[in-house]
C-alpha cells in the first residue's frame, strides 16, 4: 500500500510550514540539527523566521523564551537527550516558570537514537519533563497525530514538550482523525489485558503483541496514550476497570515516565488487578540498530506478550 508510512520529521516540518503560512508569529529554532530535523523546509519558506543558534542549546531555549515574550510562537528542536538533560534549567525557568509559550521538540527518543548510541539515548527525558508544573508532554504515535499535535501546540498558549522520532513510522489514523491534548485513543478493544502504550514504537509493538495474544484467545486492548501530561486518567481508569491485567509500555525508563504515571494513578484509584511496566529497566543506553536495541532492552511485542501471560 502506498503512503503507509511517513517520516515523522517530515510530518513535523511540513506542519510548521503550513502553520507559518497563516500565522506570522510561528518561528523555528535549531541548534545545528536542521538537516536532521528537516526544518530546512521552513527556512526555505520563511527565512526571516528561522534561526539557527549553532551548537548552543541553552542559548536556543533562552532565545526562544525571549521571542515568546514578544508574542512569537517558537518551536525549538534538538535531540531529546539535549532537549531534556542539557537545557533542563533553561526550559524550566526561562520558558515554563516565566509562563511563556515555548514548544520544545526532542527528537530521536529512547532507542530510536540507535547509531548515535548511549550518549545520545534519552531514557529519562519524560521523567525530567513530567516534574515541570503545568507542562504539556506529548508523544505522537503516527504522522497524523504528529501533525495534529504540532498544530495543537501552536494553537494553545503554554509550553509543550513534543517527543518525536525522526524516522518513517506507519500511519495508524485516518486523515480526518481529531486529536487533542490530554486525550488518549483506544486503538484496540479487549477485556483480558490492557496495553497502555506511548509513542509510535511502543504502540506498534503493543498492537503486534495484541495480535499474537489473539491467536491464543487472549483479548488485549491497546490504548495510545499520546499525551503523557495531562494524562487521560479517565481512559486509563476505564480500561483498568475492564481488564484484570494492565501493562504500561514506553520507550523510556520505567522510572518517572509513563509506567510511573500509570502506577500512581492505579494506586490512587484502588486498582485491584495486576500491573507491570515494560520499558527500560533502570539501564543506560547503548549503540546498535533500533531492532537490536528494541530486543536488547525488552521493548518488543514478545516481551509484552510474555509479561501479559505471566500476570494472568
Amino acid at each position, binding site marked *: 500500500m502506498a503512503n503507509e508510512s511517513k517520516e515523522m520529521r517530515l510530518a513535523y516540518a511540513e506542519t510548521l510550514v503550513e502553520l507559518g503560512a497563516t500565522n506570522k508569529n510561528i*518561528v523555528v529554532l535549531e541548534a545545528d540539527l536542521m538537516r536532521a530535523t528537516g526544518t530546512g523546509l521552513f527556512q526555505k519558506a520563511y527565512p526571516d523566521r528561522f534561526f539557527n543558534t549553532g551548537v548552543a542549546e*541553552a542559548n536556543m531555549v*533562552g*532565545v526562544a*523564551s525571549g*521571542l515568546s*515574550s514578544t*508574542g512569537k510562537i517558537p518551536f525549538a528542536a534538538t535531540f531529546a537527550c539535549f532537549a531534556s538533560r542539557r537545557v533542563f*534549567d533553561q526550559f524550566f525557568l526561562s520558558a515554563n516558570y516565566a509562563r511563556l509559550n515555548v514548544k520544545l521538540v526532542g527528537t530521536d527518543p529512547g532507542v530510536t537514537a540507535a547509531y548515535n548510541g548511549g550518549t545520545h539515548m534519552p531514557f529519562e527525558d519524560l521523567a525530567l519533563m513530567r516534574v515541570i508544573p503545568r507542562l504539556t508532554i506529548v508523544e505522537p504515535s503516527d504522522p497524523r497525530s504528529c501533525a495534529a499535535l504540532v498544530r495543537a501546540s501552536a494553537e494553545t498558549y503554554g509550553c509543550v514538550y513534543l517527543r518525536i522520532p525522526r524516522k518513517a513510522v506507519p500511519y495508524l489514523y485516518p486523515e480526518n482523525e481529531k486529536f487533542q491534548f490530554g486525550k488518549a485513543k483506544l486503538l484496540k478493544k479487549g477485556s483480558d489485558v490492557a496495553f497502555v502504550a506511548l509513542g509510535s514504537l511502543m504502540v506498534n509493538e503493543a498492537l503486534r503483541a495484541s495480535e499474537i495474544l489473539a491467536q491464543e484467545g487472549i483479548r488485549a486492548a491497546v490504548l495510545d496514550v499520546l499525551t503523557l501530561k495531562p494524562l487521560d486518567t479517565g481512559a486509563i481508569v476505564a480500561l483498568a476497570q475492564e481488564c484484570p491485567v494492565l501493562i504500561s509500555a514506553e520507550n523510556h525508563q520505567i522510572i518517572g515516565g509513563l509506567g510511573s504515571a500509570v502506577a500512581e494513578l492505579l494506586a490512587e484509584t484502588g486498582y485491584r488487578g495486576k500491573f507491570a511496566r515494560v520499558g527500560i529497566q533502570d539501564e543506560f543506553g547503548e549503540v546498535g540498530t533500533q531492532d537490536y536495541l528494541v530486543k536488547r532492552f525488552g521493548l518488543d511485542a514478545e516481551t509484552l506478550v510474555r509479561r501479559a501471560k505471566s500476570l494472568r
Partner: protein
Amino acid sequence: MERAKLDYLKNKALEIRKMTIEEIGTLGVGHIGGAMSVVEILTLLYFDRMRVDSQNPRMEDRDQLVLSKGHAGPTLYATLALKGFFPMDWLSTLNQGGTHLPSHCDRNQTPGIDMTTGSLGQGFSAAVGIALGLRLDKKPSHVYTIIGDGESDEGQVWEAALFAAHQRLSNLVALTDYNKQQLDGFTKDIEDLDDLPAKWKAFGWFVQRVDGHDIAALDGAIQQALDQGERPSMIIMDTIKGKGCSFAEGLVSNHNMSFTMDQAREAIAALEAGRE
C-alpha cells in the same frame, strides 16, 4: 548631558540608593553589594533613556530591560516604584510571603519587569530573543540587559554573545556590572575575566568601557551604542560593589549579607549628609 538633567538624575539615583538600602534593610538580609553597583544605570535608563509607561507596563513599542543579574531586583523595584509602576509601600514587602517583589525578577509578579531572571546567564539569552522578536516585527524599541561580572563565568552568556553578533542585533545594548567581585571573592581570584573588553570585541560586539557610577559617561556611551547601529553593544561599567552603602562598600563579603535597620538608617543618613 545638561547640568539640570544631570542634577535631576543624580537626585533620583540618591533616592533609589536610599530606598534600596531601606527596602533590603526592612527584610534584614539581601544582595546589597550588587544592588548598589547598578543604581546609576537603572536611574539613567528609567528616568531618561527608556521609553516606558508606568501606567501601561506592557505598552507596545516600549523599550525593555532584562536584569539578567536578577539578584539586583531590589534596586530595580525601587526604581520602578519611584517611577510609579506600583505603590511605594510594596518595597517593605520584599521577599515576604505573597509579595509582588521576589528576590529575583519575575515578569509575572511585578509590573514593569520584562523578563524572569535569576539563574545566571539565562536572562542574557532571553534579552537576545526579545531583541530578535522586536526586530522581526520592525519595532523601534531597544532592549537593554545588565549582566554581572560573576555571571560572565556562565557559558550561556558566550553562546548568546556569539549568536547576537551573528544576528547583528543593533537594537540590543548590554551592560556588564564590572564591580570586580563575585559571591566567593574577587573575580581575579575566583575566575579571572582578564581583558574583558577584548573578549567582547573578539565576539564581534561594539564595546565601550565607562565609569558605571558616572551618569553622564553612561549616557554618552548609550548614545554611541545606539548611534553605531550595526552590532550589538556591550558597555562595560567599572563599578564598586556596595557603592555608597557605608557598611557594605569595600567588604569582600557584601554579595548577600545581613544587616540591621539601624545600620540601614546610618547608611542612609551618611548618603544624605553627602548630598550636594
